[in-house]
């Protein structure tokens, strides 16, 4: 029997001959540099019969094989820290002394006219900043006392102070933030990026999702779904408890050698099957079983932080075995170091309405800030000291902002201080991966209600992220049901000031 590599090579050679007929080439590859994905995706979409322009990659049996973008990107990988529930920009980065002066005064009608809020009814009162602010670093960025660690790295970061969205409910807004559409069915940005660039480490998923805060994001798993892209590009959730990836552990009583024997037997029988049917899918299956076997070792290894040195634990504030944002930040660094393309973190619990102590802006919010301050600072420092920051794009933000008014849910006074959902202005920061250092772009009005300068839409943020990765967002498309789709739909402009 021929050995596996030879078989695979042979199959690829025969595919080379047939390459002009393979519909998936045009379909799945056009627009991203013309490198084929291999037989794995022989059914992805399925139109276009001729005129392919691909040169088949000989290692094509891995759909996550690294691919070149439109132009050399500055960022190679992405770590996206999403604060699910939407943290208040007014207590963190968007310092508004004028709002303090208006504290407790009724909100002027002019601000409310024509506006819709999730919970604010009637005339709410203004709520002054519930934090003290200072300027830090050479860039002089404003940061509140909630983030004492983070204030020390502001010169490595650029802020977008006037991001806006058009969705004021968590589910749709999170979908919009991650898929470019408030409706379900579109691929997430992590899927787009993995589809476009593949991944550097074939023993790990290309797109990993880590959650903390005890809940998955409001919009569910769709925020890391692959939409109409092949499911191989969807985010794989790695968990701190139980199997890090579902079904990754061998059953009890089975050791690695026995698993090796099992995989060998399966692949040997499959080779015989290939000899009969000559179906390239069979070869692809053989390759997938090999990858699965390697993944079983690689995933638990990378997900284990026990062996990190003490100073690293000290830096991040990590505690092995716990499900925490801190652990996830450290894992994100490890994953990126290992060549994972896109690491998506969700930290749940930022919805500070003021209906109880835990979700109040004066109490619970402070605690949440404490949970993220050290780890996210550590992430930047750690990436930097390893030389990874320059090609790792780190993004931090929520799905929308919070109102400068105090929430008056059901038109009544509330027991704790809180702010309602707000679409007109919020802050996102980015670092590394080609982002300029120490820029603060965009400005809101005196009370932080709306952007007055340098506004950036969600599509603009996406366009900029794709640009840093080497994609022209207008040309990075995927054909679905007869038309090319983009992450940025028909909008999006590069935010030049920060790149």
């Amino acid at each position, binding site marked *: 029997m021929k050995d596996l590599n030879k078989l695979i090579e042979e199959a690829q050679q025969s595919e080379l001959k047939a390459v002009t007929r393979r519909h998936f080439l045009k379909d799945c590859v056009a627009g991203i540099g013309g490198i084929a994905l291999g037989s794995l995706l022989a059914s992805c979409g399925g*139109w276009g019969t001729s005129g392919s322009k691909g040169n088949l990659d000989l290692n094509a049996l891995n759909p996550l094989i690294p691919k070149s973008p439109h132009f050399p990107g500055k960022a190679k990988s992405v770590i996206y820290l999403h604060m699910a529930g939407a943290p208040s920009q007014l207590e963190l980065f968007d310092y508004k002394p004028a709002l303090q002066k208006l504290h407790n005064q009724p909100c002027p009608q002019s601000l409310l006219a024509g506006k819709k809020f999730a919970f604010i009814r009637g005339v709410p009162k203004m709520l002054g900043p519930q934090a003290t602010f200072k300027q830090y670093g050479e860039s002089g960025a404003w940061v509140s006392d909630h983030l004492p660690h983070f204030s020390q790295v502001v010169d490595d970061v650029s802020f977008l102070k006037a991001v806006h969205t058009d969705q004021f409910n968590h589910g749709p807004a999170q979908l919009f933030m991650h898929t470019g559409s408030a409706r379900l069915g579109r691929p997430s940005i992590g899927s787009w990026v993995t589809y476009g660039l593949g991944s550097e480490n074939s023993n790990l998923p290309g797109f990993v999702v880590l959650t903390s805060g005890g809940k998955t994001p409001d919009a569910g798993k769709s925020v890391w779904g692959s939409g109409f892209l092949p499911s191989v590009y969807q985010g794989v959730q790695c968990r701190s408890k*139980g199997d890090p990836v579902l079904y990754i552990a061998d059953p009890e009583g089975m050791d690695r050698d026995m698993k090796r024997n*099992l995989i060998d037997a399966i692949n040997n029988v499959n080779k015989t099957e290939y000899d009969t049917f000559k179906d390239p899918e069979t070869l692809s299956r053989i390759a997938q*079983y090999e990858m699965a076997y390697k993944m079983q070792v690689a995933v638990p290894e990378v997900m284990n932080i026990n062996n990190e040195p003490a100073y690293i634990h000290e830096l991040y504030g990590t505690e092995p075995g716990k499900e925490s944002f801190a652990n996830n930040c450290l894992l994100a660094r490890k994953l990126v170091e290992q060549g994972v393309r896109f690491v998506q973190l969700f930290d749940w619990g930022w919805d500070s309405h003021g209906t109880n102590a835990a979700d109040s802006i004066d109490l619970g919010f402070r605690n949440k800030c404490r949970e993220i301050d050290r780890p996210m600072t550590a992430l930047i420092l750690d990436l930097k000291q390893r030389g990874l920051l320059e090609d790792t794009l780190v993004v931090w933000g929520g799905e929308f902002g919070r109102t400068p008014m105090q929430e008056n849910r059901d038109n009544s006074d509330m027991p704790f201080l809180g702010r309602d959902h707000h679409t007109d202005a919020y802050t996102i920061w980015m670092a590394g991966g080609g982002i300029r250092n120490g820029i603060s772009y965009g400005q809101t009005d005196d009370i932080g209600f709306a952007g007055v300068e340098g506004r950036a839409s969600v599509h603009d943020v996406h366009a900029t992220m794709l640009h840093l990765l080497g994609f022209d967002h207008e040309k990075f498309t995927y054909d679905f049901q007869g038309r090319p789709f983009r992450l940025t739909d028909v909008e999006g402009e590069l935010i030049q000031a920060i790149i």
Partner: protein
Amino acid sequence: MVLALLALIIACFTIFTFGKEETVDFSADVKPILNKHCIACHGGVKKNGGLSFLFENEAFAKAESGKPAIIRGDAEHSEFMKRLVSDDPELRMPYNAPKLNDDEIDILKKWIDQGAKWGKHWAYTLPDDVEVPKPFSLAGLFGIKPKGVNNNIDYFVQAKLKSKDLSFSDEADKSTLLRRLYLDLIGIPPTLDEISAFIEDDSDDAYSRRVDSLLASSKYGEKWASWWLDMARYADTKGYEKDGSRSIWSYRDWVIKALNKDMPYDEFTVEQLAGDLLPQPTKDQFIATAFHRNTMNNDEGGTDSEEFRMAAVLDRLNTSYQVWLSTTFECVQCHSHTYDPFKFEEYYKSLAFFNNTRDEDTQGDHPKLRFYTAQDEKRVDSIKHWLAVNGDGNAVKSADLFLHTLEPKIHAHYSDQIVNGALYDTKWLGVRSSGSARLKAIALDGKRQLFMNFWTDAVGGKMEVHLNKPNGPLLANIDLPKTSGRQVIQAAIAPTSGVHDLFLVFKNPAVAAGQPICMIEWFAFREDFPIGKPVENLNLQRTFLQLVNLQPESVPIMIENPKDMHRKTNVFIRGNRLSLGAEVQPMVPESLNEFPKGAPRNRMGFAQWIVSKENPLTARTLVNRVWAQLFGRGLVEPLGDMGTQSIPPIHRELLDYMALDLMNGKKWSMKKLVREIVLSGTYKQASTLNGDKAEKDPQNYYLARGPRFRLSAEQIRDQALAVSGLLSNKMYGPSVMPYQPDGVWMTVYSGESWVKSEGEDQYRRGIYTFLKRTSPYPSFVSFDASSREVCLVDRIRTNTPLQALATLNDPVYLEAAKHLGNIMLQEGKGNTKKSISAGYRRAMLKEADPRKIADLEALYKKALLEFNKAPASAAKYLGSDLAKENTKTISSKAAYMLVANALLNLDEFLTKS
């Protein structure tokens, strides 16, 4: 002699056609060039220079220059042609893009010179008749068919094969063929007995008899339902943030039953789109309308119900066009279709058909059909009977509808001008003492009773109903009793005529100032019971209210708005629902078949238009998708788009032939359609990719071999359970929760959790697995099943390491392996080779290649050696108790389980070939 003559005739004909200049065909030759190079700037979205090539009138109209771009019959003087060849880069089109090639320019020139005839794309017209391309043969005169030809389908395929110098493959061997047939028709493989009986059966109709018995099996509906449920976006939860459960499984059961009884596709369509509008709809016809209640429902606090009602209505429209017509209608929401002949306003005219149903994105998922017990149903009948005697037909109808659906009702979110109160969680009306709320423009003619669903902890509350203003005339002063949970109360209101605003004023001195007096979910204004015998009247009214207060099992359905609640539909400017354009009336797009004469302008009319034999897309769409289920790919690709953007199909004549025959000959029978395809020689071919054919047609577009592709998520699970003897045959009922790892469900707010089902419910077919939209069953997701949030017409088939991990390590597959291993142990009676052959046969349903047996035997031996050394590991792997069995048995069982695990992971097991 005859052949020679024929050849001569053909030769002459060929010379003759090529002798004169070829006529350029708009759809085949011109339109693709326009779509590729011109329409992005001169089409449905942009009309640069005032010129568009989307519609005929636009293409020949005067452009901004004041002149038409194309002069029919005169290419030389047409600005269009001048621009294509101009040397000035500012003038030459396409702008900023490479020049068209000479062939393209030549085609366009000829087209204009030949009169620039516009044409319809093939997808938008249906031929009257398609001739079957039976080649003449003497043998044919004696009824002898050529090799590989079993029915008319094969003549079409054969003709195309010839054009590529290809020929049919041999028929698949009998066991492969029967396995293929079983997996395709009922979704699970045959048993070994069924295989051997088939192999031994030499009769002419051996195969067709099996086809017929499988089509008659109740498992047929279970298999084909998952195809339909992907399109219907059926799930067991409501979607979005909260994603709470939704009890809509009776719709899933309806689909299974409808498929099993072979409900004709036209009926199947009408019942799902408009079953509620049929005369005196049956319970099942109401359930069918749940098709469009599978839209998502947003229960997140702070959401605007109208926004998500509209999202659901848009989804229904887009889904209807997608499911029945393979049309990407959603493109037209914001602008005229870029490629297909659908105008922007036409989107909203179609939307108007769907915009008048009672559902309003309420947390209660109203309206729902209520399933009373037989006893309660009798009480309903007694009320109806009494009303029939003492009232009139309308009273019976109204009571029937209300008791079974609680419609028409007014939801709390309809209230406005709320003073000292709020819409709590943007769902429920809660007004504090002396506060008020308005119900706008209520039609009060004949309405004498107010029904209200509400709850409160306090005694002594009152709700006053005032006419026109908060201190207007008092129509009712209603006591609000303390309730335990939600309760419906009924109260008389003073007779009033006309349409009025009503103001509700709430009072209860016992309730603290900041607290609402009560919470209200809905109101209903209803006519009085007719004046009859007072005592009976009173008793029946009491029964009526008792029935209304029951909370029986129910399913969300469609109910049309009554006249006084009719919604207008407007164009949304640039697709934005908050920016309204002109009002529109329900109508279908001009470029498709005419709206049926005399059909009502509602969903019923729309459904009739869909199933009209004039509709060029309905039957083709069904044929194409059924074909794709069997062959892994449609005759037209992509499955979601049969229009100008689809690939010109190789087998269009076959598609048209089958579509026409489906409507006329087969009277829309889906089973007959499936039957014809699986009886064809084309279907029965072996699927081996041998050299020559694979090279000429690696993707098998020409069908010179049979289908071969990976099984679906559900099939893979069902098959593993079937061959290990675990599969339950139980049908219907609430969805079940088989084993799933802990911590997969971590949803916000809802307290719901995955509770593993008991007994045989763990081993039900995949179609019955509980599907939570934000967190679907993990191993199904790995195998490309849909999360059913939106309509899906074509599952992509991927091949990934996560799939390998699922079938290698998911406890479901390990349990199946354990059972299969035990069977192997028993059947071999101590002979390893025998055991392994038996296991292979049971899974693959054929004899194994000896090399495969050798590989598996080697695996067994290695495992046995290891397990003998470590019996504790063997016991753990098996999940059995070391103390209770002897070590040797345990090691052997564990080793067979491992081999069975391998069998369940083999490519040939996961693949239909």
